[in-house]
Structure formats: structure tokens, C-alpha cells
């Protein structure tokens, strides 16, 4: 049973437009969510996070939205840039446990076309 799902394996957008990456989870005990970005031949790098007491967190061009009732979160990138082309992983964990024990989605490959 996959507890964190990223249903879109890939997404292609034009430079300057908005990229929206989606993630669904099934475990209602998750209360801390993170997005990581991964370039080829490198390890994932942390992008942005949100705890369940919030419904939005913004950091520059990146905004994460959390809808707890729908068990859904999304990452918005505005405006998208070619350097944003990477694999994006959604991850979920529980704050009252070791946050490193995150459960990851399968990833979405974002391609931003110039």
C-alpha cells in the first residue's frame, strides 16, 4: 500500500509559466510534508516543507499548498525556469517521530522548455 503518491510521472511546461506538481497521501497521521528536487547523478536536495498546522508555505518562486481534508499537497513554481528541470519528490512524515523516517512518492520529472 503506497502511502504517498505522485500520480503524474512527468510534466512539461513552458519557461515563464506556472508548474504545478501534485501529491496525495493516505496516512492521516502524517503531519509534516517536504518537497525535494533531484538532478541526474546527484542526491536529492531539500526544497520546501510545510507542517499540518499551515495550509500554505512560500519561499521565493516556490509555494506549497496543503489540503488536509483531501490529503493532498501541491508545489507551485512561478515563474518556471529551465534550471527547474529535475525530478521532484514529495515526502511525508510525523512530527512526533524522527522526521527522517519520511515516506517518499515515486517522483515527477519536470521539464521546463525555453
Amino acid at each position: 500500500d503506497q502511502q504517498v503518491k505522485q500520480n503524474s510521472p512527468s510534466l512539461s511546461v513552458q519557461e515563464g509559466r506556472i508548474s504545478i506538481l501534485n501529491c496525495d497521501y493516505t496516512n492521516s497521521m502524517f503531519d509534516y510534508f517536504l518537497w525535494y528536487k533531484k538532478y541526474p547523478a546527484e542526491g536529492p536536495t531539500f526544497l520546501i516543507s510545510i507542517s499540518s498546522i499551515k495550509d500554505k508555505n512560500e519561499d521565493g518562486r516556490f509555494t506549497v499548498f496543503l489540503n488536509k481534508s483531501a490529503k493532498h499537497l501541491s508545489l507551485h513554481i512561478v515563474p518556471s525556469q529551465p534550471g527547474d528541470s529535475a525530478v521532484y519528490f514529495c515526502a511525508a512524515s510525523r512530527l512526533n517521530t524522527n522526521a527522517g523516517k519520511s515516506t517518499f512518492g515515486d517522483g515527477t520529472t519536470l521539464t521546463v522548455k525555453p
Partner: protein
Amino acid sequence: DAGITQSPRHKVTETGTPVTLRCHQTENHRYMYWYRQDPGHGLRLIHYSYGVKDTDKGEVSDGYSVSRSKTEDFLLTLESATSSQTSVYFCAISESGQGKSSPLHFGNGTRLTVT
């Protein structure tokens, strides 16, 4: 970049041979993790450590063992490698503990091929 070094970066080995992957950190973080990444499976936790000599299993621990004799080093051992263990292995570290939250910082991975 967080100071995490994985070695080797690439390894090809034969079925049935033992393999040890090393993760070294210079951040003095208490928590260390081993994940594997496979197509269609994202990142899955193999084992983790919450201190020297303190380790526990993750979701895909069968066929793997770990050891942590020093804060800075976390070793992953495949006692008898199988083709299903062909994967990219990532080490990660974290500052967080009970009641806290912080992201993972990953190394650049070890690509292991078992023939």
C-alpha cells in the same frame, strides 16, 4: 552543501559476494539513513541510525545490515548481493529528533550493479 561523502560512487559486483557501502559526514548530525532509489519506487528507507551503535530497520531492510561505530560513519553491508539489490543507494543525515522536524541532507549516491 552538507558534508556527506559516499564511497564508492560506482560498483559492479557478482551475485553472492559481500559488499559494503560507506557514508561519511562532517556535520556531526545524530541521525543517518540509507535509502535506495529504483525506477517506479521513489526512495525507500533501508536502515537508519539515531546514534552510535543505535540502528533500526526501515521498510526494505531484508538482505542488508548496517553499523555505526562512530558518529561520522554509517556503513551499509549486503552480506550476499543479489540482482534485486542493483540500485542507487543514498545516504542521508538529519538534525531532527523526537518532536522536532528538519529535512534530510543527501549524499550523491552509490550506483551498485549486481551481475
